[in-house]
């Protein structure tokens, strides 16, 4: 296990280095941030001074080495726009995004698994067919449109829920989050449901497929032959087997939820990382873009690691390989 984790961390370091290099070159190729940052009517001297202050006068490879040197000391550079450390900027926005992603994930799992399992257990019933039809909508309707519709119905016409921003925050276990106050919950509900919709459909379909597949297995028939109730067969025997693929996909999708909550955050003016990255790309704010991607990739790696470990707990046949990779 320890060897497994150490090897994984080393792989992570390589991935991060390669990715930062790609982003560095990529952003350099897109355009010159000084054209945006320095006001157009400033003269050449002023312009040169600004370029030198941002370190953009040096050749790209030197800039990259300078960045690496800083990164090893935990400094990912200063934002060109906000003039504050990029990492700090991201960390300020991270909790909002994390809590939105977390809320969306909980909604997707809590609603998706039972719905999917029911649809798989009674595939012919009208309720199941409705669920499956609904999941197709969940897949195919664009997130931003659903978000706008939700705002129109629940915020504008019915006036039940607020449409923008993050509500009041409270503190629990030293974590500041809006999930512990009523106002905060009211604010997070719409964006979380919006973000969850796609994942909910995915979880639902996976659970249904798993259910149908597992119900045909001999072990289910044997469990029934033992005289177990249908309830125990489904909720213990089948459920534990369905969880294995669900955990894998959930892990991957959690990363996606965090990284690509951009659309939902924009629609609901949610002050998270997604909105920050969009603004930064517009401004060619390279340190923030690089730092954002580093943080996101690290998160992906961490989630995948957690999934692998969880996998070995759920499925006794999987043992994390100590010897071979």
């Amino acid at each position, binding site marked *: 296990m320890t060897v497994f984790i150490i090897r994984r961390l080393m792989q992570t370091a390589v991935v991060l280095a390669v990715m930062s290099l790609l982003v560095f070159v990529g952003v350099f190729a897109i355009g010159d941030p000084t054209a945006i940052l320095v006001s157009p009517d400033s003269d050449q001297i002023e312009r040169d001074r600004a370029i030198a202050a941002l370190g953009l006068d040096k050749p790209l490879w030197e800039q990259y080495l300078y960045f690496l040197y800083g990164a090893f000391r935990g400094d990912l550079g200063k934002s060109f726009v906000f003039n504050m450390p990029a990492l700090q900027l991201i960390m300020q926005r991270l909790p909002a995004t994390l809590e939105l992603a977390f809320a969306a994930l909980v909604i997707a799992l809590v609603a998706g698994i039972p719905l999917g399992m029911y649809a798989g257990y009674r595939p012919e019933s009208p309720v199941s067919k409705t669920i499956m039809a609904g999941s197709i909508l969940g897949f195919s309707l664009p997130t931003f449109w659903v978000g706008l519709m939700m705002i129109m119905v629940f915020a504008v016409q019915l006036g039940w829920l607020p449409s923008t921003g993050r509500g009041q925050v409270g503190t629990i276990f030293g974590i500041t989050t809006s999930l512990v106050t009523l106002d905060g919950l009211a604010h997070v509900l719409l964006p979380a449901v919006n973000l969850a919709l796609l994942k909910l459909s995915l979880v639902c379909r996976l659970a249904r497929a798993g259910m149908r597949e597992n119900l045909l297995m001999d*072990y289910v028939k044997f469990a029934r032959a033992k005289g*177990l109730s249908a309830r125990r067969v489904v909720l213990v025997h089948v459920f534990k087997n369905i969880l294995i693929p669900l955990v894998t996909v959930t892990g991957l999708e959690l990363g996606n939820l965090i990284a690509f909550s951009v659309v939902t955050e924009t629609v609901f003016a949610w002050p998270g990382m997604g909105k920050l990255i969009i603004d930064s790309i517009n401004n060619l704010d390279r340190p923030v873009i690089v730092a954002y991607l580093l943080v996101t990739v690290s998160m992906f790696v961490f989630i995948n690691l957690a999934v692998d470990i969880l996998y070995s707990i759920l499925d006794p046949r999987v043992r994390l390989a100590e010897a071979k990779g």
Partner: protein
Amino acid sequence: MPDPTLRVENLVTAFHTRNGTLRAVDGVSFEVGRGKVLGLVGESGSGKSVTGFSIMGLVDPPGRIDGGRILFQGRDLVGLPEEEMRALRGSRIAMIFQDPMMTLNPVLRIDTQMIEAVKAHHPAIGDDEARSRARDALAQVGIPSPEARLKAYPHQFSGGMRQRVAIATALLNKPDLIIADEPTTALDVTIQGQILFEVQKLCRQTGTALIWITHDLSVVASLADEICVMYAGKIVEQGSVDDVLDRPTHPYTHGLLRSVPSANPRGQPLRQIPGMTPSLLSLPSGCAFRLRCERATGECVQVPEMTAPMAGRRVRCFHPLLSTVPV
């Protein structure tokens, strides 16, 4: 005369599919008494497994029992409410399946899977008591260090050991009837021999009735008291095992016995029954075997009835082999 453990009368189990109705079991009757072993023999698709599942009440849609009676200790199981059927399953009637690699849930430990089988029928029994029953059952089927093995997962067992675990699970509640659906087919011959020996011993000791479903005549010869030969959903020949195997009267039974390679003279081409098992969707009219039968005549387009050509023997054929030399 007391009721036999199980009496099946005219059982019809059909699958209602889009392409038509398949009568997988078509008017099957037999009985098994206490401590007796009935061998249910036939090729794949002859309806022998479906007969077993019908008795367990585990025929899944589109399959359905369409007629007949299944009298278990005098009580008809056909149409029994699901909850009453569940209470019998695994408690009074147990079943062992063909593929031991598939019958145990891969993600649950052996103790979980055995204890739940006890508690499903005896909710009052505590975990410790249920666990000790499980341990005893494992010891009974010859699993070494059962206490330690209880904590293992199925993948840590070999095929033979898994089948022993499945058999131990079936024995947990001391059933009166065990239906074994080809339980040794997937195992090595030596393991098969051991398991047959154990099962036979258990039935003799506890008076459990046993239905052994198989396509392997040698297994039946060493294990069963009575034998039913099934073909295309019908029993074609029925009698005591020695009689039927020594002097088969139905041409199909005769053909089956002649197909066993060891019965053939060395160096000769192996004998076989000509043709293929017919699909249940397109059975020939009359006797289902007539197209493959060398004794068939015009009369065979009628459905033959069960007749008793000699004492203790029933056969479904117009032209039984009554005076033939043994195979």
